[in-house]
């Protein structure tokens, strides 16, 4: 590789350890940089230091091979040579141009930023790291500088003086800088709420990630779920029999707690509703309790529904890979709905899944539903037409449950959650790419007597990311996650100290995977739960035994002295 950077600093592979919050972030100095004499950011790409703990591991070749992505090979982020094809620069620039022609958002957002800085301190990663390149504006400028160089008249004409126009050469260093900061963005879109022109960094980093994928530079935490999902239908790579076994295990647990044996169906043709939820809920705590929650809810309502082992994933890491991959993985939902002959799809609690369902699915794949039995969703219990899902025919579970509760069709005993003081974490995508704000709150308030909101700048459309969205919820980037999770944790800490909040509810499987680590780190007194776990604990099932413990086997309030079940 002739084009290798000479000055690329590779941090020593010394054992990396997560320090305490005090050392890690509370000492972050937001006023540290610039007197004006140092290098401007246009020239600092060679100084970027890829730090352990701040990035995810490289994708294994087998992941890329499984789905036919380019340049599968063994490589490591910490290596100097990333083993790129010789013509990597051409590939990137061609890919750049292709995307400028296909996405108005990308083209426009390259052109109209005025660098007013309104977005600068809105990014959770910037807040937690004070790294100026984590300001959304600068993250996008890393791309705009290349755009100006190769795709604008000024950049082309000025040549070596391009810096005057804010242009710079695409070098190996710049590519590495891109990569490092692309995978330090969770595409949460908080910055786009504040931008006077609605510039959405996610649009830029989604394109940027597509470009890295042309060179085989994905991270394993995204590439593996994609490869698994393609073959087994879900991110975790759970095969059909194992998927069924996992749920059967939940049924045993539920029977222990409630005394009721539930018998759900799988891949059943002729069911009215197909239920799809992120596989994270089937596989990992505390999401499993949410999955049990769905089972109990559907049992209590007695609806005609089926699970699918083929479409066993709500999430879609294709969104973080490329448009084509997102479409490919998403297609299973409609394909399965059509094969099973269901009337509509009910979707579980998940964040980016709902960005895909709300903003992409119909556009990408509705053709697949042609000739199927699908129709405008109607609640079988209340008869409510879900007019807002008329075209895609997919309803969010909190929309569904909120409607049930409004009609009083669910017998619940909220006092079973009286030991909980609950706050709600709006997940980025349902709030900023959909507007699902009141439904989960309504559901929670119906099953919990103690609900407290976090401060207004941290919730609803201004909500903060959990710190690990968009495929960054790995273990090796824990420092990044803890830095990025700081604003969220800080708000939880605030309500914990003020109201004694001890439960953080959310409607996202990635949240349920990420927030427990975050809480443990900053506010260990607070536990994470899905909304439907709270619902299930309050539901009074027909024929149930006296409930003494919740789904986690913890005693219900007032039952602390009862014998263990």
């Amino acid at each position, binding site marked *: 590789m002739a084009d290798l950077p000479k000055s690329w600093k590779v941090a020593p592979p010394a054992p990396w350890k997560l320090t305490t919050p005090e050392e890690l972030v509370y000492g972050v100095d937001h006023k540290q*940089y610039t007197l004006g004499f140092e290098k401007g950011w246009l020239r600092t790409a060679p100084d970027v230091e890829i730090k352990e703990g701040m990035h995810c591991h490289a994708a294994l070749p087998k992941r890329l091979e499984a789905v036919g992505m380019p340049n599968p090979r063994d490589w490591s982020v910490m290596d100097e040579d990333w083993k790129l094809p010789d013509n990597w620069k051409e590939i990137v620039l061609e890919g750049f141009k292709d995307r400028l022609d296909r996405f108005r958002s990308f083209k426009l957002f390259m052109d109209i930023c*005025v660098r007013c*800085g309104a977005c600068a301190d809105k990014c959770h990663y910037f807040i937690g790291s004070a790294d100026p390149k984590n300001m959304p504006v600068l993250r996008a400028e890393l791309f705009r500088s290349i755009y100006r160089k190769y795709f604008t008249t000024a950049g082309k004409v000025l040549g070596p003086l391009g810096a005057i126009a804010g242009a710079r050469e695409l070098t190996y260093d710049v590519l590495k800088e891109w990569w490092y900061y692309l995978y330090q963005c969770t595409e949460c879109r908080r910055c786009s709420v504040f931008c006077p022109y609605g510039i959405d960094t996610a649009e830029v980093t989604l394109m940027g990630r597509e470009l890295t994928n042309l060179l085989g530079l994905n991270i394993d935490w995204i590439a593996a779920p994609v490869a698994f999902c393609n073959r087994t239908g879900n991110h975790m790579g759970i095969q059909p029999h194992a998927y069924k076994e996992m749920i059967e295990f939940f049924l045993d647990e539920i029977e222990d707690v409630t005394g009721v044996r539930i018998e759900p169906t799988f891949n059943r043709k002729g069911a009215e509703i197909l239920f799809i939820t992120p596989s994270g809920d089937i596989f990992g705590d505390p999401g499993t309790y949410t999955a049990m929650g769905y089972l109990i809810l559907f049992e209590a309502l007695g609806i005609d529904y089926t699970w699918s*082992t083929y479409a066993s994933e709500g999430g879609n890491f294709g969104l973080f890979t490329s448009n084509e991959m997102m479409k490919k993985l998403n297609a299973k939902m409609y394909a399965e709905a059509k094969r099973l002959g269901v009337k509509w799809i009910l979707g579980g609690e998940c964040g980016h899944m709902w960005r895909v369902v709300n903003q992409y699915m119909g556009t990408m794949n509705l053709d697949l539903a042609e000739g199927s039995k699908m129709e405008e969703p109607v609640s079988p219990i209340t008869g409510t037409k879900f007019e807002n899902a008329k075209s895609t025919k997919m309803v969010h579970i909190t929309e569904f449950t909120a409607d049930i509760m409004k009609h009083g069709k669910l017998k619940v005993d909220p006092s079973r959650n009286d030991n909980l003081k609950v706050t709600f974490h709006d997940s980025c995508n349902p709030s900023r790419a959909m507007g699902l704000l009141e439904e989960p709150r309504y559901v929670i308030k119906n099953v919990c007597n103690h609900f407290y909101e976090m401060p207004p700048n941290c919730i609803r459309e201004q909500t903060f990311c959990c710190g690990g969205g968009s495929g960054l919820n790995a273990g090796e980037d824990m420092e990044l996650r803890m830095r990025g999770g700081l604003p969220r944790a800080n708000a939880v800490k605030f309500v914990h100290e003020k109201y004694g909040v001890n439960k953080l509810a959310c409607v996202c499987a990635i949240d349920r995977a990420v927030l427990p680590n975050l809480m443990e780190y900053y506010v260990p007194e607070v536990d994470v739960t899905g909304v439907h776990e709270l619902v299930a604990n309050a539901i009074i099932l027909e024929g149930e035994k006296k409930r003494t413990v919740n789904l986690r086997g913890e005693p219900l309030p007032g039952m602390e002295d009862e014998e263990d079940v």
Partner: protein
Amino acid sequence: MNVILSLIISSMAVGVLVVIPFAGVWGGRLAGVHLEWLFGIVIPYLAVLIFFVGIVRRVLKWARCPVPFRIPTSCAQQKSLPWIKYGYAEKLDNPVSTAGVVGRMILEVLCFRSLFRNTRLEFGTGGDIRYKSAKWLWLAAIVFHYTFLVVILRHLRFFTEPNPFFVKIIENIDGFFQIYTPTLYQSGFLLGAALTFLLLRRLLDNKLRYISLPADYFPLFLILAIVKSGILMRYVLKADVVSIKELTMGLVSFHPTIPEGISVVFFIHLFLVSVLFAYFPFSKLMHMAGVFLSPTRNLSNNSRIVRHINPWNPPLKYHTYEAYEDDFREKMVEAGLPVEKELPPAEKAAAPEE
């Protein structure tokens, strides 16, 4: 490009732009060469041409680019169940209808709605993080844009005869305090003040200083120079308004003339304005047109209700159920999962009996 270099480059550029017409007109007069026609006629015409052609070209470039997906940033509750509040605020911040989108765009373009949300991070010690309301940027932006608009509208008195009624009204309001002769117009000074604030903000805020490029300082310096030359001309040097109007009316009526006795400062002012016009389509100032096309603002959040069409929707390639079942049929049968195709007899025999 660090801040010092950026400042040097952009201020020098504006300096040169002041010197060019000065040298051309004043120096020319000394040397007996009359270049007023160049600075008073040719360059302004060229600049206006570049301005309009450039903007139209750029907007067409954007408009030709497809919008594959509906990606509005939803900044309020969605329209969902009939009893969940979806009032005016929600309709504007998370529109589902065209009317809502139009309302959202009006608020965005005329009131800078999103900028009004701005908060400021205060990162204290010991994890004390606060987000304070920060409306100064919004205020400065509003003052800057609206006073600039007023100044431009006021200038219509040089380009119309008789003046439209609103020019008189604007002049009366703008000169409300009736101090000084000629009457002091607040707009020019407010414009200068807002520009100064925006410049100081760039220089004094760490974050802004780091991200700013020459392309950020240059327009600020340029517009400041325009404001200053205008103020100088009107209040200090008291330029010959009658001759100037003769020139400007000549320009708009396409019978350009160069009357006698127009001071050099006018040519400097006009040249800087011409540069601003010509620079506009190639710069970040295009945000003026771009904001109308922003897909996170000008689309309704209705993609679950009405299908949005992607003109280049790629062909569908996915792992079909049939391929999936072929892969796992044996395990599925064993687990009692229904299958489309039964196992072949040999394998069936091998599968354990229930």
